[in-house]
């Protein structure tokens, strides 16, 4: 079976992190978001893969290892929107009976794709759509399912739906004639509805974790799930580990990373290649710090995603935040991370802290930013890429 991965989207909701880099190339635990889909497809035996991208040179660079190892093609998107992306792959799909369509910004275990393929095969349907239970369906596509658990139709980001708590999970098995339907209808949702009206489209129910990386804080959710699946620690032999560093719980520490004296790392935590963790720094659970970062002495990082080549000065606190690449947080910066009560952010789920429900979100710091020394950054602050704050 052929597979098409859509990775050409602009990622508007992901701004400012998607400025200067496609959303699907943002890193999580050392690999770009899109690679989670590629790996899953390869492990279910699909190797004939095309990725539809906006700018192929960036992908060529970031995915070079994959491109040399597997039969993966990059297709540049010609027309805009999802419809344009799928149509760009029509030559690749033509000739095959069905194909798998996957969204490059979905992070889920491989089993989710197995569920999709198994449903398609064992219910001998013409097509299958992966769905997953969700309460806040208004930010997703919503499937209308029949009593026999087939898809009747799909609604895109409906304002109010009652009686349905499933979201379309961004993976499909579709007949190649779907391309014609898109051309006819000019719209994916209408094409899916056409398909469901004419053919049997099975609903494949995925019950495990699943993250659609749409908003910056989805990256934190995704890294939390990925880190919670760590069952063992992996510390590179080339990492420079101080004998007095304290490491608790599962961690991944990459090549040539350096952990200085008295640093405390409370896993699950990811620390990328060549990243330096300073003396006395505290890296708390569910933090993912990518390659070539610097965390200064006595700084604290908690439940945050830090992109490559960013440095965080000494005595800073970064909590529940997402920091883009090549940014600088000068010494003594404090990022507050509890949203005032009553503030609601879509897809941000309150967490329980000592019995109290809190909405926690720190700062969303873009790429190539600078936060001046000793600044207090309020919860929920967005700092644009390239900005010097304040």
């Amino acid at each position, binding site marked *: *079976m052929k597979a098409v991965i859509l990775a050409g989207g602009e990622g508007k909701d992901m701004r400012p992190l998607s400025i200067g880099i496609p959303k699907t190339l943002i890193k999580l635990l050392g690999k770009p978001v899109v690679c989670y889909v590629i790996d899953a497809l390869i492990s279910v*035996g699909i190797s004939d893969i095309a990725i539809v991208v906006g700018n192929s040179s960036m992908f060529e660079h970031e995915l070079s290892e994959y491109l040399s190892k597997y039969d993966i093609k990059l297709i540049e998107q010609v027309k805009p929107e999802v419809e344009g992306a799928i149509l760009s792959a029509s030559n690749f799909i033509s000739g095959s009976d069905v194909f798998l369509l996957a969204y490059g910004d979905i992070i889920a275990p491989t089993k989710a794709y197995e569920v999709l*393929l198994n449903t398609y*095969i*064992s219910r001998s349907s013409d097509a299958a759509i992966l769905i997953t239970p*969700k309460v806040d369906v208004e930010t997703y596509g919503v499937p209308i399912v029949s009593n026999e658990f087939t898809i009747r139709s799909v609604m895109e980001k409906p304002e109010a739906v009652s*009686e349905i*708590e499933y979201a379309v999970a961004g993976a499909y098995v579709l007949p190649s004639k779907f391309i014609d339907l898109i051309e006819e209808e000019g719209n994916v949702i209408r094409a899916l509805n056409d398909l469901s009206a004419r053919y049997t489209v099975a609903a494949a129910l995925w*019950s495990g974790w699943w993250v659609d990386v749409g908003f910056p804080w989805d990256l934190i959710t995704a890294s939390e799930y990925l880190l919670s699946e760590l069952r063992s620690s992996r510390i590179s032999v080339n990492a420079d580990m101080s004998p007095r560093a304290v490491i608790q719980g599962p961690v991944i520490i990459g090549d040539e990373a350096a952990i200085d004296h008295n640093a405390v790392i409370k896993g699950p935590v990811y620390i990328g290649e060549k990243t330096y963790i300073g003396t006395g720094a505290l890296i708390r659970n569910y933090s993912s710090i990518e390659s070539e970062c610097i965390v200064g002495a006595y700084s604290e990082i908690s439940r945050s995603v830090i992109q490559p080549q960013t440095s965080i000065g000494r005595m800073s606190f970064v909590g529940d935040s997402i920091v883009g690449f090549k940014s600088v947080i000068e010494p003594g910066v404090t990022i507050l991370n509890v949203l005032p009560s009553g503030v609601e952010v879509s897809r941000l789920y309150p967490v329980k802290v000592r019995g109290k429900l809190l909405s926690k979100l720190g700062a969303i710091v873009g790429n190539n930013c600078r936060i001046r020394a000793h600044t207090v950054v309020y919860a929920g602050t967005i700092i644009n890429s390239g900005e010097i704050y304040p």
Partner: protein
Amino acid sequence: MCGIIGLVAKQDFLREPIGRIIKRCLKRLEYRGYDSVGFAYIDGNSGSLIVRKSEGKIDDVAGKLKFDDAIGCTAIGHTRWATHGKPSDYNAHPHIDCKGLIAVVHNGIIQNYLELKRELMGRGHIFRSETDTEVISHILEELIERGFKPLEAIREAFKVLRGAFAFAVIFAFEPSKIYFAKQTSPLIIGLGSRANYIASDIPAFLEYTNRVIVVRDGEFGYISPTEVYLESLSSGIVDIKSRMRVIGWTPEMAMKSGYPHFMLKEIHEQPIAMERTLKSLTTEELEKAIELLLNANRVFIAACGTSFHAGLVADYALTVLAGIPSIPFISSEYLKYSNVFSDRDVGIVISQSGETIDSLMALRKMKESGVKVIAVSNVIDSAIPREADLAIYTRAGPEIGVAATKTFTTQIIALLKLACQVSGSMGFDVEEVIRDLERLPKLASRIIRAYEGKCKILGEEVSSAQSAFYLSRGIGVPLSMEGALKLKEIAYIHAEAYPAGESKHGPIALIEKDFPVVFSVLLDNYREHLIGNVAEMKARGAYTIGLIPRGDERFIKILDKYLEMPHVNYLVAPALYVVPMQLIAYYAAVSRGYDPDKPRNLAKTVTVE
């Protein structure tokens, strides 16, 4: 549901007896049915068609069927889950025609088999079984006699048959081909290098090949060692190249119709299972049971685990609807009553598998004292129904998940229907209950769709708790017991159920901040009382979750989380309210990283006392 397998190989390709391979494939289809097994093959030496079949599980009858003796290159096999005709050697598949030249294995139901059978018998065909399947072999026999080639005969037969079915056929005079046809029931072709396979499901042959073709509705054809022919009734010959798929994933996942776990599949199957059970329970079926209950001196209800909870629901309904209070007890505790049982009493013994040893012992004790016993089971002709005076069957289909889900809801349906009929024949008005029973399949399906997201979140929240309470009053108590049992057995969270009024007499001492308490509020006279019970839990910091009748503001105001349930008669409510509880337990187990299909220390059928 049944499982079928077929295999054709080139001469000398197979390195072991074909029977042994068929047995291995059938083992993997056992989840689709396990009450009888059989296979047919073309003998390698004589070239004749040989059929061996028996009632019983594959491993139990392997010696009798002598799988290892079957040597040849063409064979079909079958594992059965009885729908038409009880499990017996005669009713086991394959079924042959009058001359023994055609052997058929079949999965599904042929709706118009009765009329076809009557016509065929009128023309002199001799039927050896009570199954719907046997009509296929006799129809094919007639068509062949009229000069049709096997492929044409299959095409013609296909046009006559109505229903949901998939079948595979061997003709003795075409020894290296297996013919097949498919409508609704699943059928998959496996492509090997010098052998081809056909089966109800991929895992059956996945050990030998991972290249498959999924046969679609209305398609038929044949496989030979080197060729696959596929034709559609509507659109002619099918190009098989474009239809081939390579399976690159684990076979274990492939058996669950796509669902990640059997338990989730079975929760989702409940609307269908309910519908089937409702349809199959006619007044005639229940007539004898009604008569027994009407004339009973006392009624005993014996069961274990989930079945016991269904028994408690039945007790409640019989008391309220028919004024027949019964004595429900856990089967293993039967000794207490052994001096009391008398021949004027009636016993109801409930067991999903029909083999639960504790319930079987209780049944035997009752029978010794002359108690008339009604069995309620999901497995036709298993030990308990066999030894009982009469049996009522739930039609839930095989249940593989160890935690009972669809068998609980169908047991409730069967028992409530019985209680209603008893009450109705005493002249009481039970129309409302019956009407709501009939609505259950649709409502259950709606509840699943509407609340799966919330149940997932509730499951994730509960998953971090040490213990939980399930509270209600009235018929909501056995419902709560079942909800608590689900959480215990698959998510390993200590959970207890109490009548809500009882909590003040002790259990409330355990309540501390964030202790989850699940309330079931039904449309009965206990509703007002439960408001106070929720408030007292809330006052002590409990995390209160409620299943409440739609729109009941008094509860919406005080509960931390609630699911609004459709308004149904309170007697019917347990079968509906339990569905979200099953989902909560399932998602709690999944989020704790446990496999809900394989709870530790538990077995599906308990056969030791």
